C-alpha cells in the first residue's frame, strides 16, 4: 500500500521534473537516497527515504535549485553493510548523482566511506553517532557525543543529583565508544569505579529479566541511580516493558536513552514509561511554527494522521536545506565547489534556532532533554542555553583528545594533531 503510493509519488515527481524539463534547460540535479527499505534497518531507515522524497518534492514545487529540478534516485541497500558500499558506488559511478543522503548505522557508514572518498562524492549522514571520524566528503548532520551524551550526563548529575550510573548498551561500535567516552568523563568528574555498572547486550535482545533485576539491585544502594541507555532499535521495547513490569519508576531510577525517539515509542504502550528521559536535538513536541509546518507536511505526505517525526528526520531536513543553500551559493553542483561553499552555511532548524555547518563538517545543534509522556511524545524539561557545535574527536578519549578537524584551506585536514602539528591523513585513524 505504501509502496504503491510512493511509486505514484515518485512518478509524479518524475513527471513534474520531466514536464518542467523543457523550461529548465539544464539537466536535473540527481539526489541519491541510500536508505535500507528491507531487512532489519528498514524500520528506521524507510521513514528517512520518505522524508527525503518529501523534501525534494517540496523543493521542486518551489522551482528547484538555480532553476534546475531535483531528481531522486532511490536504491535499497537492504540492511546489508557490504551492499551499502556497492549501492553507493552504483549511485556515484553509474547514476552520477550529485549528492547522497543516507545510512543509519555506523557500520554502514564505515562501509560507504571509502567509496565516497574514492569517487569524490558528497554524503549527508543524519544519525547521532560515536564521533571519532571526519571525512572530507561526509557531512554529519546528526549529533556527535558532545551534542547528546555529555550534556545528558551533565543534566542527570547537576539537576537530578545522580551519583550511581548504569551504562547499558547494545554490543556494537556506537554504544561501546560512547560508553568509553562517558566512563572517562564520569571518572574525571569524581565518580568512583564501583558506582559505574556497564552492561552490553546483543542486537534485538528480548529477555531483560535478570539485567533489569540487576539494575534494580544496583540502584537500591541508597545513592541516586540513573541508567544511560545506548540500547539500539527493537531491543528497547522489551527493555522498557520489563522496567514497567518490575515496577522501576522513573522517579526511582530514571533511564536516559540516546536511541529512543518518537518512532520507537510508537511501538509501545508508554503508560508505564512516563518520566523516563531521552536526549536529542529535536523532539516532535517542540512548540514552534516551523516544526508544526513540518509535521503538517509530513502527515499530509504520508496520509497518516498518527505519523510521527523524529530527530534524524530533522537532521535530513537541515542537511537538505544546507545542500540547497550551498549549491545556490556556489552556483554549481560541482562537488568541490559545494564542499567549500557549505562551510559556514546557516539554515533554520525545527526547534526555533539556526544550524550552521562547521569547518569539521559537523553542525551546531541545541541539546534537549525530554521526558516521555503517556501519548508517546516527549516533554522538554531541559535544554542548552545556546547551540553546541559538534566535536568530531572526543576530548575524553586518549587517542583523540589532541585531534581537531578543519576542512578549510590551508589546513584541510580531518585529524590534525595540535600537539605534534601533523595531519594524520586518512579520515579515521583512531581505532574504533
Amino acid at each position: 500500500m505504501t509502496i504503491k503510493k510512493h511509486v505514484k509519488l515518485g512518478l509524479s515527481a518524475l513527471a513534474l521534473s520531466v514536464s518542467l524539463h523543457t523550461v529548465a534547460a539544464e539537466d536535473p540535479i540527481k539526489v541519491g537516497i541510500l536508505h535500507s527499505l528491507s531487512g532489519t534497518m528498514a524500520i528506521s531507515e524507510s521513514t528517512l527515504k520518505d522524508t527525503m522524497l518529501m523534501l525534494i518534492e517540496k523543493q521542486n514545487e518551489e522551482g528547484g535549485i538555480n532553476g534546475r529540478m531535483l531528481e531522486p534516485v532511490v536504491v535499497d541497500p537492504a540492511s546489508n553493510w557490504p551492499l551499502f558500499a556497492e549501492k553507493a558506488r552504483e549511485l556515484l559511478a553509474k547514476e552520477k548523482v550529485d549528492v547522497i543522503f543516507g545510512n543509519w548505522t555506523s557500520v554502514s557508514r564505515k562501509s560507504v566511506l571509502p567509496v565516497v572518498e574514492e569517487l569524490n562524492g558528497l554524503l549527508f549522514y543524519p544519525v547521532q553517532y560515536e564521533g571519532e571520524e571526519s571525512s572530507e566528503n561526509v557531512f554529519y548532520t546528526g549529533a556527535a557525543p558532545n551534542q547528546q551524551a555529555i550534556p545528558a550526563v551533565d543534566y542527570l548529575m547537576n539537576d537530578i543529583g545522580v551519583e550511581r550510573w548504569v551504562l547499558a548498551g547494545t554490543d556494537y561500535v556506537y554504544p561501546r565508544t560512547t560508553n568509553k567516552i562517558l566512563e572517562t568523563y564520569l571518572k574525571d568528574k569524581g565518580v568512583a569505579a564501583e558506582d559505574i555498572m556497564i552492561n552490553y547486550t546483543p542486537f534485538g535482545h528480548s529477555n531483560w529479566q535478570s539485567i533489569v533485576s540487576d539494575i534494580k539491585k544496583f540502584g537500591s544502594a541508597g545513592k541516586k541511580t540513573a541508567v544511560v541507555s545506548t540500547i539500539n532499535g527493537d531491543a528497547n521495547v522489551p527493555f522498557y516493558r520489563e522496567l514497567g513490569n518490575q515496577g522501576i519508576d522513573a522517579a526511582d531510577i530514571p533511564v536516559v536513552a540516546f536511541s529512543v525517539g518518537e518512532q520507537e515509542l510508537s511501538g509501545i504502550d508508554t503508560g508505564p514509561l512516563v518520566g523516563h528521559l531521552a536526549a536529542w536535538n529535536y523532539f516532535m513536541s517542540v512548540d514552534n511554527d516551523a516544526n508544526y509546518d513540518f509535521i503538517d507536511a509530513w502527515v499530509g505526505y504520508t496520509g497518516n494522521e498518527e505519523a510521527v517525526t523524529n530527530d534524524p528526520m530533522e537532521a535530513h531536513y537541515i542537511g537538505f536545506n544546507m545542500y540547497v543553500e550551498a549549491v545556490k551559493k556556489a552556483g554549481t553542483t560541482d562537488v568541490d565547489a559545494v564542499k567549500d561553499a557549505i562551510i559556514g552555511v546557516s539554515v533554520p532548524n525545527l526547534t526555533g534556532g539556526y544550524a550552521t555547518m562547521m569547518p569539521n563538517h559537523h553542525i551546531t545543534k541545541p541539546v534537549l532533554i525530554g521526558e516521555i509522556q503517556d501519548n508517546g511524545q516527549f516533554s522538554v524539561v531541559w535544554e542548552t542555553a545556546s547551540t553546541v557545535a559538534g566535536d568530531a574527536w572526543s576530548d575524553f578519549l586518549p587517542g583523540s583528545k589532541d585531534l581537531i578537524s578543519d576542512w578549510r584551506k590551508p589546513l584541510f585536514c580531518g585529524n590534525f594533531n595540535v600537539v605534534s602539528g601533523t595531519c594524520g591523513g586518512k579520515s579515521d585513524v583512531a581505532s574504533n
Partner: protein
Amino acid sequence: MGIIRSLSQLLLVCCLILPAVAAAQVDDSEAQQLLTALAESSFKEKKDVVNRIASSGDERARPWLEAYGDNKLARIESSGEFVIVLKNRGRDWTVESAITGDNLGEISRRDIDTIRVNNALRNELEGILSVIDLKSPDEENRLTAARALKGSVDDTLAERLPEFIAAEESDAVQAALTEALAIYRVEEQGDVSAVATLSGSLNSEARAALQQAQNSDDPALAAAAAKAMESIEQKLKMNRAAETLYFGLSLGSVLVLAAIGLAITFGVMGVINMAHGELIMLGAYTTWGMQQLLPGQPGLALILSIPAGFLVAALAGIAIERTVIQHLKGRPLETLLATFGVSLILQQLVRTVISPLNRTVITPDWMSGSVMINEGLSLTLNRMYVIGFALVVFAGLMLIMRKTRLGLEVRAVTQNRAMARSMGIKATKVDILTFGLGSGVAGLAGVALSQITNVGPNLGQSYIIDSFMVVVFGGVGNLWGTLLAGLSLGTINQLLEPWAGAVLAKILVLVLIILFIQKRPRGLFPQKGRAAEG
C-alpha cells in the same frame, strides 16, 4: 531519600484543613492566578506553587495536580485560558476548562501550551496525593500510599504517624506505616529500639537505613543494625535464588513455545523449515490484527487470537508444505534453502503490506504488572501467563500425539512410511495435517510472544536459531526432550547471565550444547529402536 521535603506543611494542610474545609473554594480569578503562577515559574519555583495549590483547599486542586502530573494541564495560547487535556493524540486535542470544567471541544495543538512537569515535581505531586490517600476509604489506596511513605517521612509527619497507626484498621497498612516510621527513627534519630521493627524487612529504604546505622558511632546501634542486616541478607539470598529460577523458567517456557512447533515439523517429520520463525511472526501479527478489529478490548482480542493465530499459521504452513516442501521430499539441503527463501518472502511481505515498523500489541490489564510475593520479590504477570500457556500447549500436543488417531497415524508415517501406507494410511494427508499442526503451534507461540517482545517483521529471525538449538539438544523427535531442553537452557542462561553478561552467557550456552552434542549426538532423549535409524 527525602522525597517529600515540604511534607510538613502539606500534611497539616491535607489532613487537618482539607477535610474540614473541603468545600472551600478559591474564586475563579484567584484560581487563574495560581495556575498562571504555575505556568510561568521555573521548575524550582513551581514546587512552591504546587504546594500553594494543594493548600488552597480548593476541591479542584486535586484534579489540577493530577492532570499536571500527567502532563495534561495546559494553557490556551490565544485566550490564556487554562485547560485540562482529555485527549492528547494527533494534531487536535480535546480539552476542558480547568476552572469551570466546561468541555471546550477540540483545539489545535499549536494553540496549546502544556505546563511542563519533571520527575522531581512528579515526585512531589505523588507525595501530596499519597498523604491525601492515607485518608482514603479504600484499603488498597491506603496501602499504596503507606508504602510510598517509606523512606520519605519527615519530622512533622513522624509526629503525626502514631496517630494514623492507631486509627488504622487494616493490619497491612498499619505494618507499612510502622515500618515507615521505624525507618525514619533509625535514619534520623538513631533509635536502637526501632531497629527490631526493620529486622527482616526487604524494603530497600529499610535496608539503606540499616546500612547507614551499621556505620554509626553508637556501638549498640551499629551492632543491632548489623544483626538485623544479617537476617535481611539471608532472606535476600533466598529471594535471589527464587527470582533466578523464575527468570530461567520463563525464558525456558518461551524457548519451549518457540521450539515445540519445530519439534513436530523438524523432529517428527524431519523437515528443516527455516520459515518456522515467520510462522511465529504470523501468529503475533494475528494478535495485532485481532486487536485492530476489536478496539478497546485487548483482553478479548488476545483470547480470540489463540484460535485465530493457530489457524492463520496452520494455513500458511500448509500452503508452504503444498507449494514447496512436498516437492523437495528427501532433499534436506534444498528444503533448507527453499524454506529460507520463503522466510525472506514472508518478512518482506509483512514489510510492504503492513509496515516495516513494529506494531503495538496492547497488553491487557490483567496481564501487566507483577505479583508481589514479598517486598523484595515480585514476579511479572505476563511471564507467568506465558509459562502457563507453554505448559498447556505442551500438554495439548502430547495429548494429540498420544491419544488421537492423528497422533497414531503421524507416528506410524514417520516411523515407516511405506508400511504405514500399505496399512491404508493416507501419507500425504498425514503430512499436510502434521505440518499444519506444527505450524499452528508456531502461531500460538507468536500469540504469546506478542506479549513480551516486539511485533515486527524481524520477530521470527530472533527465535529460529534458538528453536533449532532446543530441538537438537532435547533429542530430535521427542516432545519431552524439547520441554526439558527448553526449560534447562533457559535456566542455565539466566544463571550465567548475572556474572557473565548477556552476550557471553549466550555464547557459553552454545558452547555447552556443542560439547554436549559431541558426547551425545542424539540429544537428551535419543529415539530408541527402529525409529532411530529412520
